[in-house]
């Protein structure tokens, strides 16, 4: 192409001098170096922690540490299963309760909300993120847990035939209340990311659906949600990470019983809570057992994230490689849904 023919007089890329190409190169290599540096830092992080955890693994063996059901400090036995199960139960609960509510709030804020309420609503949900974790723990144990204890006991009694949920004595600190407060804690981040993602849905998608006769809900279900799927999952993964790693609120709310709780409203323990509780007084093998517990957490997060990434990697790839925005077939809600799901 002739350089003079380009409006603005800018030269074409091919004709640019090496000096002009320098910022591009510098940026590319600079950012690559940065990414490599971060990777190296994270790897170093793991290496140091594995080093600290080694004595515990040497004593117990990796499998017996991760799946042994006996966390007994005075006897120096370190089987982390009660901790692992506690982390899993509370995090899953947090996701089950928190993500639907967060996504619903995001949908409301972007699609259904009167315009002038949008910003205040957004701010209010994000205000939840401003509360420090220790305040969540204290509010939970001194305010929420006692208030809910009656209702929890009622549920446990009514559903006593269902294993795990019913049939036990409800203690004030328990798995359920921990999961509930964790759900509240992850609400802002899941909601905020979902909202940001939803606000970038191309208006044409939405209008096409409405023009074809979809109700508001159908439009959301077919045009908005599929488009945002990978973003929402990304937000949910961040929320899950927060739930798995939350330390102080969980130690206060879960009861710190180094046993497998037998039902939803029993006390339990979690990996992060164990570390926070015991590190101050831990010495020797106990200390390295706590680092080993941290490693179990990494593996857990790793597995969950790998699965999630797998599920959306196809969608993410399609997005970034630039599926042209205007390529939807006209007419027919099915075609729209197909394209949206594949984009």
């Amino acid at each position, binding site marked *: 192409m002739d350089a003079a023919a380009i409006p603005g007089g800018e030269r074409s890329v091919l004709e640019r001098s090496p000096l002009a190409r320098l910022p591009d190169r510098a940026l590319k290599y600079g950012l690559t170096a940065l990414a490599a540096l971060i990777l190296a830092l994270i790897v170093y992080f793991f290496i140091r922690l594995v080093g600290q955890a080694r004595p515990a693994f040497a004593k117990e063996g990796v499998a017996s540490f991760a799946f042994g059901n006996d966390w007994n*400090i005075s006897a120096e036995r370190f089987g982390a299963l009660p901790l692992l199960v506690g982390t899993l139960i509370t995090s899953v609960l947090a996701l089950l309760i928190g993500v639907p509510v967060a996504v619903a709030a995001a949908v409301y804020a972007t699609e259904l909300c009167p315009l002038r309420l949008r910003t205040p609503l957004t701010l209010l949900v994000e205000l939840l993120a401003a509360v420090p974790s220790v305040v969540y723990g204290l509010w939970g144990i001194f305010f929420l847990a006692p208030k809910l204890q009656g209702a929890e006991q009622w549920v446990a009694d009514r559903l006593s035939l269902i294993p795990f949920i019913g049939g036990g004595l409800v203690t004030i600190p328990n798995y359920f209340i921990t999961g509930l407060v964790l759900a509240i804690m992850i609400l802002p981040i899941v909601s905020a990311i979902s909202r940001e993602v939803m606000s970038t849905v191309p208006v044409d998608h939405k209008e096409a659906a409405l023009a074809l006769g979809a109700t508001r809900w159908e439009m959301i279900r077919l045009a908005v949600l599929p488009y945002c799927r990978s973003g929402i999952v990304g937000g949910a993964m961040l929320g899950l990470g927060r739930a798995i790693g939350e330390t102080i609120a969980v130690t206060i709310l879960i009861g710190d019983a180094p046993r497998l709780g037998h039902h939803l409203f029993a006390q339990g323990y979690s990996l992060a809570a164990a570390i926070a509780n015991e*590190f*101050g007084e831990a010495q020797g093998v106990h200390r390295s057992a706590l680092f080993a517990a941290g490693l179990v957490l990494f593996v857990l997060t790793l597995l969950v994230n790998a699965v999630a990434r797998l599920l959306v990697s196809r969608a993410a790839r399609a997005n970034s490689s630039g599926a042209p925005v205007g390529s939807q077939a006209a007419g027919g809600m099915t075609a729209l849904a197909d394209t949206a799901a594949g984009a």
Partner: protein
Amino acid sequence: MIKNKMGALASCAVLTLGLAACGSSNSSSTSSSTTASTSSASATISGAGSTFAAPVYEQWASALSGLTVNYQAVGSGAGITSLESKTVDFGASDPPLKAADEEALAKNGSPAVEIPMFLGAITVSYNLPGVKAGMKLDGKTIADIYLGKVKTWNDPEIKALNSGISLPSTPITVIHRSDSSGTTDGFTGFLAKVDPEWKSKIGEGKTVQWPTGTGEKGNAGVAGGVQQTTGAIGYVEQAYALEHNFTYASVKNKAGNFVEPTLESTSAAAEGITVPANLGFKISNPTAPKAYPITSQTFIVLNKDLCKAGTPGGEAAAKGVVKFLQYGLGEGQAILSKADYAALPAAILAKSKEAVAGLQCNGAAIG
């Protein structure tokens, strides 16, 4: 316009980075000068350890002018570890030093010294409307409650000790600590001493496998749990219980008397006990007639020759630590009763003062 905004944001970031870098460039990673004070008139010392003793050390620190004390209440274990790695000038521990810790500290170039500072007690607090005072319990009964063998307040075992009180049939809700703590150590230590069944089944320690009961975090958690639940029983640090006017039981001591956890009875617990040469004593089911049996102690731990051992604050800090200790063992003792902590008996206090006098900096005694 966009470019200007981005440029503005970017330069803000750079400026902050620059300011922060300036601020942090003063600190090198050598152990000599890391603490902050800009004016050389006031020395800065740092300590870490026992959460139990923290309020008192902070009160002493406020009373001293010309000295800044940065105390981290991270727990006795972490305090000793910090001292071992020369992160702080002194450590604070509730249990006396173990042999392994003494060795590790000696590796820093000077033997370890532990100085008893004051005493505290653990109350057995409960929530039973209608029984506001006069509850008597002994070690075995408490152990049986915590083992889950005694389930209601009108159990024969409790009745036998409290013939004058009418006890309701309310079930007992047992509350214990969920986090690792010296309070649990002291409580279980007492139970292990007086009840062989407890000793063999559960043992003692900062954390144990509780056979029954609800775990709550910290003294505040146990206290809150006791207050919220009718029929609850929990072990709460004396300072906490006295400050908040809890209802607590009097406990039978070795001499056979039922003693309430007052400051006097706590101090009495340390009367007449054998104090080893390194001053690392541990009160366990004391024999004195007026003693409250569930009592604990707390120490400040340091190396005998602070400067030689590489104390991070240097010579100024060494002098500051001695000033702090002299104040604490002298005028500072007057605050203890206000704070609801118990003072050491005179004999042990004198030994502590001697130990402080023996502290050195590079061979020279500190003034």
